[in-house]
């Protein structure tokens, strides 16, 4: 077990290195630098700026310099936020994304798993078709359709939640994270519901469940204690991609609800060609995804003794 974790943690290094290198050279081969759009700057000023940020050195020197800084967890200064370093921007914006993401994750898991179990237990009955149709609707109604509708209904009409923004919104009963999280969470709840139903149906058809029934174990205990453990395996395997999706999905909800999270910062940095911020956020996202994949693998190992060797 520890060997597996250690192995995967070692894998994290080449993956992050590849992400970093790819992104770094991608930003170097495209025309146009961060200061080429500055209208009033004279060539001398631009040359000074380039010298200040080390952009006048050969690319391989820039690359090695950057790499040696990243190893020390220093992503350098941001070009657009003159007073903030990339680390500070991430430190300011990520907690916001994390709140939304975590809440969305809980919503997705609770609603999705519950709906999936109910559907599997009532296979081919109304209580199967109903949650599954709703979940299909959830998959097909993307966050950027659902988000504006929620903002309209809960924000403008019912005045329960803020329509947009993050800071200083205490005049409404709901925290500003709630609506983005619900929007994001419902989409993933739909996927999790389908996965749970499939996994539960597989398990409920197996011999050990029949044995348990024959022994007279009560039905709710069969489902909660015996079937759920195996039935949730496909869901656990999905948690890694799910978290990745929550991050990338947050680009959309953060735009819809105008939340100053890391997704917004990333989009802004890409538009502004703020290379250190782009590189920093990409590497940060990459590390998060790899770590979450690792966590979901470990949970899978804990739940499923068969996959341990």
């Amino acid at each position, binding site marked *: 077990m520890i060997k597996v974790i250690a192995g995967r943690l070692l894998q994290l290094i080449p993956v992050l290195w590849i992400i970093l290198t790819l992104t770094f050279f991608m930003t170097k081969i495209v025309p146009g630098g961060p200061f080429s759009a500055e209208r009033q700057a004279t060539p001398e000023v631009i040359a000074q700026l380039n010298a200040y940020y080390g952009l006048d050195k050969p690319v391989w020197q820039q690359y090695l310099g950057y790499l040696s800084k990243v190893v020390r967890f220093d992503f350098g200064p941001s070009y657009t936020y003159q007073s903030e370093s990339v680390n500070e921007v991430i430190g300011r914006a990520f907690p916001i994304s994390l709140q939304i993401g975590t809440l969305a994750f809980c919503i997705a898991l609770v609603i999705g798993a519950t709906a999936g179990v109910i559907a599997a237990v009532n296979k081919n009955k109304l209580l199967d078709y109903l949650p599954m149709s709703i979940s299909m609707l959830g998959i097909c109604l993307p966050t950027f359709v659902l988000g504006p509708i929620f903002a309209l209904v809960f924000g403008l009409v019912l005045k329960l939640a803020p329509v947009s923004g993050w800071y200083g919104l205490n005049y409404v009963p709901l925290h500003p994270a709630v609506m983005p999280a619900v929007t994001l969470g419902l989409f993933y709840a739909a996927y999790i519901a389908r996965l749970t139903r499939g996994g539960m149906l597989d398990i409920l058809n197996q011999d050990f469940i029949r044995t348990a029934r024959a022994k007279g174990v009560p039905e709710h205990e069969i489902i909660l204690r015996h079937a759920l453990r195996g039935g949730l395996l496909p869901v656990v395997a999905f948690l890694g991609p799910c978290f*990745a999706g929550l991050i990338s999905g947050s680009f959309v909800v953060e735009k819809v609800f105008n939340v100053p999270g890391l997704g917004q910062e990333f*989009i802004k940095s890409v538009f502004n060609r703020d290379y250190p911020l782009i590189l920093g956020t990409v590497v940060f996202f990459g590390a998060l995804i790899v770590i979450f994949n690792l966590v979901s693998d470990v949970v899978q190992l804990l739940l499923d003794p068969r996959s341990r060797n």
Partner: protein
Amino acid sequence: MRDSAPAAPFADPVPVQGESLERGSSLWRDAWLRLQKNRIALFGLWTFMLIAILCLGGPFFTGYSYESTEISLKASAPLERIVLRTEFRKVGEPRESYLALSSLEDEFLGRSPAERRAIKERVQNGNEFREGNAAYRLSNQRHVFGTDPLGRDLLTRALIGGRISLAVGFAATLVSIAIGVVWGAAAGFAGGKVDTVMMRFADILYALPFTVIVILLMVMFGRNFVLLFVAIGAVEWLNMSRIVRGQIIALKNQEFIEAAISLGLPAYRIMFRHLIPNVMGSIIIYTTLTVPNVMLLEAVLSFLGLGVQPPLSSWGVLIDEGSRTMETSPWLLFFPAVFFTLTLFSLNFLGDGLRDALDPKSSKD
């Protein structure tokens, strides 16, 4: 071993006389029959076909162009009556412009409310109203879905947007399938070290933050239409390669392939008659499920302003525009969202149905 007819999804049900008397049921015919029993999947198929035909042919018949603007019309509601304003000038042709009936009263802000209402009623009843050098009368123009804030016909824009969304969806899926099938089949066939290296590479790619990379590609290399689906296709092929590889490996060692080899069938016949048709099922299922995913990704990019650029539209662009004005003109969000959701719905239902139809194991459920 029974010899069956050439694989075709719409195989003729009547046996051809003289060719072979006993005719087995092919995989595709079985699948087609099973699919026909699945009403939801059929509904998905027909809905999707309908939307595709509408998007392809519709823009020729709406009578409006997707990019010509009519500023004075602004965002008129669906099917609202539209007033034609003709301004006679001293030189040249009279100038014609359109405005929505509901905004007619705003033209005469200098008059009393009662007078304004009277003018509106007069025009509404089909009479002409003259004021100075301008004449107002009801036109027989109608915009079924209304117009956007620039006065462009929403129906035409939604259909043109559908073309773009579907084109990106299918082109990007084709790119991803081409890469995925070749990569997966090569890895599966080769086996051993080559397989390990190829799949480890795919594993590493799998850990990359995809949406982030597509966004980067789109911004760095310009918002180019071709690049859009190449970029999406280039990140969506991983699942396909895994599925194809798994299937090829499983099939390679099965008895029916052994039997085919021992019967002395040539390698190409084993490939095309036995291996490929079996994998084709998964490819088709996965294609149907990839298209909606790709369309979703395209829409997300367009929604963020990184995909298709105005005046060209796509469903993502339209939903983005609609969500900005949803308080005052909700139809601008409603119609594109319905089109988009319905397409995703039908493709997902079709994909699920195809999975049940083409995978005999799953039909037990």
